[in-house]
């Protein structure tokens, strides 16, 4: 079923759902790429929720959560119990965060930014898959909301190259979005009832090592508390990027949650507002957070986070998370 994105986007934010992501920060490097500076902060959910004060903060490589992610070229996760590391965020009181993830974005070996997302209560998971000594992917760090037995079995699960979404992402070096999971047969890892809630999986390659991603971030999005209100994965067409200086992209994956329904569209060309976002992200070459005030977004949307994904020296994909 192919559906034009704009058809349902209008109704998407009429009755917004609580997303699993409660809090977003974007850090970008300074000019000589010696420090990361916090450039944007946003909270999701109702307007009443207080946005933390935007202070000018910067960290060196290895310092703080963002600096660690940069140094390790991998997603860092901090759980609720290790709040000592989170000196800036009052996790418990302000936003009920259960874990915070720092996702580094690299252009080859060069840091392009770090996206920090804070996850709240609900249903869903974030897993970091890294290669073991036998070229198999295993979860090295993770956060689960709900899904206890799934978490247990995942600890013992390995994916060889090419197997499952992590294995696929790792083999191809490209992100992958798999929708309509639940009880579907392609969700091979699920075995219990809890996983039925999982609607979509997004696999992102992180860093580069010997021609393959250093690790794979897998976000599992549920229908009850999706990762974002709207998740779009765009594929940039290579020749067009160079010729026109403007990305001509193709939507290869989208998952939108509106009133519990999940719809799929693929192969569509971007609408004007989407083009603008893509273009901005492309020209910045950095993670980008735009609010409804700064750019034209669908009605009801609060802000959009765009993450550029490079393979070798080319921008191959853009992931849009809209809240």
């Amino acid at each position: 079923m192919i559906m034009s994105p704009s058809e349902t986007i209008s109704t998407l934010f009429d009755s917004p759902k609580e997303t699993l992501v409660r809090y977003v920060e974007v850090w970008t490097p300074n000019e000589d790429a010696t420090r990361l500076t916090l450039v944007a902060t946003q909270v999701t959910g109702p307007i009443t929720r207080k946005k933390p004060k935007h202070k000018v903060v910067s960290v060196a490589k290895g310092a703080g959560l963002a600096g660690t992610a940069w140094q390790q070229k991998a997603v860092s996760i901090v759980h609720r119990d290790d709040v000592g590391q989170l000196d800036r965020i009052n996790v418990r009181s302000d936003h009920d965060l259960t874990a915070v993830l720092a996702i580094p974005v690299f252009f080859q070996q060069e840091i392009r930014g770090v996206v920090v997302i804070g996850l709240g209560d609900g249903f869903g998971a974030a897993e970091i898959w890294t290669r073991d000594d036998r070229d198999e992917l295993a979860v090295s760090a993770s956060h689960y909301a709900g899904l206890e037995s799934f978490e247990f079995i995942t600890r013992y699960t390995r994916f060889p190259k090419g197997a499952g979404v992590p294995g696929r992402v790792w083999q191809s070096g490209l992100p992958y979005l798999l929708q309509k999971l639940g009880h579907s047969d392609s969700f091979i890892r699920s075995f219990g009832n809890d996983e039925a809630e999982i609607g979509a999986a997004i696999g992102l390659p992180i860093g580069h090592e010997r021609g393959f991603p250093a690790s794979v971030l897998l976000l599992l999005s549920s229908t009850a508390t999706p990762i974002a209100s709207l998740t779009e994965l765009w594929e940039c067409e290579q020749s067009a990027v160079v010729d026109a200086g403007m990305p001509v992209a193709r939507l290869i994956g989208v998952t939108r949650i509106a009133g519990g329904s999940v719809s799929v569209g693929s192969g569509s060309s971007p609408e004007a507002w989407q083009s603008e976002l893509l273009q901005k992200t492309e020209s910045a070459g950095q993670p980008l957070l735009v609010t409804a005030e700064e750019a034209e977004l669908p009605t009801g949307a609060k802000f959009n986070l765009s993450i550029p994904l490079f393979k070798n020296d080319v921008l191959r994909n853009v992931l849009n998370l809209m809240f």
Partner: protein
Amino acid sequence: MNENRYVEIANLTKAYPNPFGQDIAVVKDFNLILRKGEIVSVIGHSGCGKSTVLTMLAGLNPITSGSLIVDGREVAGPGPDRAVVFQSPCLLPWMTSFENVMLGINQVYSHGTKVERKQICEYYLSIVGLADSMHKYPREMSGGMQQRVGIARAIALKPRMLLLDEPFGRLDSLTRMDLQDVILEILDRERVTTMLITHDVDEAIYMSDRVCMMTNGPEATVGQVLKIPFARPRVRSEVLDHAHYYDFRACLLSFLQKQEHRKAAHVASFSKKLLDAPVEFVEDTVKEPAKEPVGV
């Protein structure tokens, strides 16, 4: 030698041409690495190509592409360093169990004296519990006893790798459990790297360190690998009573179930592939990611 990568199966592919000259891959891009001394089960539905993988590893079936390395050596043809136990015992019916085991021992211990070889043979027959039936012919023995001889013959070769192709498939459940224990006991002592093909979920969990789940063919490959954390040597009752035994079981069963569902869809596309004329539609069907078996 890297003991963590004792057996390396990389991008293993087996394809047969269909009547129209197109190759149909039974197994495609199969990747698996075994640690030395590890027991890995391969489960999947019958006909999914698990036995094909095993016979290729045994060298009995030529590979189409990819590579197979055992202990640093590329597999080229069958050899006694990779002993196989098939579903049927494959004993030579005109030889006693002693002679059957001796046949292999004579090949492997050609340097030993006759007495030594005889002792080795008797030793291995006794550890599979056949000390009293050494001079019986296969027809005088039950299926379980015959399979014991097959196991003794394989182990007696002192193989680098032991390949078990549904060795208990034709046995009743009691005999099956007996034999599982016999094999586990031997493997705990001898530490032979083992690949066990099975479709019995409980057997896979009880016997192995890791379970490799294969997707359904055509183009069967590894779907997921599950590590079984129970320490060895194992005691059946303890394994069964383990708090998470049923989680592992449910995970494997659910995988198999999903493959079963997938099969129906695949049969249609497979037969279409078989019947398609060589040129038609090829261009169109290339970029369809959803068609390939992918999972989370």
